């Protein structure tokens, strides 16, 4: 059980790492947001699932409540994080920010 939760947290951290590298390395506004929005949500889900499993190794009513609270965090982040990404992309589109393409290099990086 502990091994599974450690594995889950490690995979979650890997997603976080990918997201951070993506924010720095990707060429323009939209692709950076893609990295930040998708990978953070996934990383949070995996690491929180790992923590919930770790809490549940010592099975009692109080710990089940803690695990439910941890999973509630995930539920709220799953609702809010895509919405926040959507709002920022929406603002970018309305501000006529050109997406990056292969032949028209550069776009307009921030």
């Amino acid at each position, binding site marked *: 059980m502990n091994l599974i939760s450690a594995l889950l947290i490690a995979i979650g951290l890997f997603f976080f790492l990918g997201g951070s590298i993506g924010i720095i390395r990707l060429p323009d506004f939209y692709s950076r947001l893609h990295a930040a929005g998708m990978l953070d949500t996934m990383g949070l889900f995996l690491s929180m699932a790992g923590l919930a499993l770790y809490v549940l190794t010592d099975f009692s009513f109080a710990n089940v409540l803690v695990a439910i609270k941890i999973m509630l965090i995930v539920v*709220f982040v799953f*609702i*809010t994080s895509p*919405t926040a990404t*959507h*709002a920022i992309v*929406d603002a970018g589109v*309305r501000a006529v920010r050109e997406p990056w393409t292969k032949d028209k290099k550069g776009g307009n990086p921030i």
Partner: protein
Amino acid sequence: MKLIGKLTIFLCGTLLIVFANKFPDFGDPHSPAATHLSPYFIEHTMADTSVPNIVTSVLADYRGYDTMFETTVILAAGLACFFLLRLPEEEEKEIYFRHVPTGVTIRIEECGAAPEDSEVFQRIDSQWVPCDIIIRSTSRLLIPFIQIFALYVVAHGHHSPGGGFQGGVVLGAAVILFAISHNLRTTVAKIGEKSAAIMSAAGVFIYAGTGALCLVLGESFLNYGALAPILGTDRVMARSHGILIVEIGVALAVMSVMIWIYYNLSSAGKQDEGL
């Protein structure tokens, strides 16, 4: 005059530097605070106030004066924003509305009748911002949860980290989220500037009034034990309940000051249309 100011600053700075050396080390177990004050609070808090969270009882009971004036400082910050930023309302000569289904923008002159509270017509001005159905419905979904959590933070300050300031900020943030996801005009229609101002003063009034009530009942200011006959409990529980009453006042003041400052800052004092 400038010279006197500079001299004062120089003198205060020198004194601070000189005496900073004589302070006890950080976390020194032999410092006066650690040998006299901390043990008293750690040993007596539960017996005095029956509040398990020592920080809350020190903040709102033993050190109640300080927190009362902190709340007053927050009210003063709201007032300062109001006096610095608020502009008198101007009568606009022409206003613009957009007919949403067709995308036609119409101009209404001074004498014309403007459509009010319509789903079909949308008010357009220089600071018009688009609002999006996804963002709107998500924030509508989340705001009740945020508010319930804020009330939990206020009420649970006795047992866990939290209390009036934190809960008030979360409550204010819920309203600000509503203002961002919809627009400022809708929000002002729900919680007006006047009611935000009155509520922020009322929060400070609840705090100071609780203190004054203790004074009326014949004990010292902010000694909540005096409230025992009113609350119908013994003196220890009365102190616990007194802390809760005071926290509610703080939460009210902090929430409405947050909203009030947001109204003034985001619309540059015009209260037309925010972010």
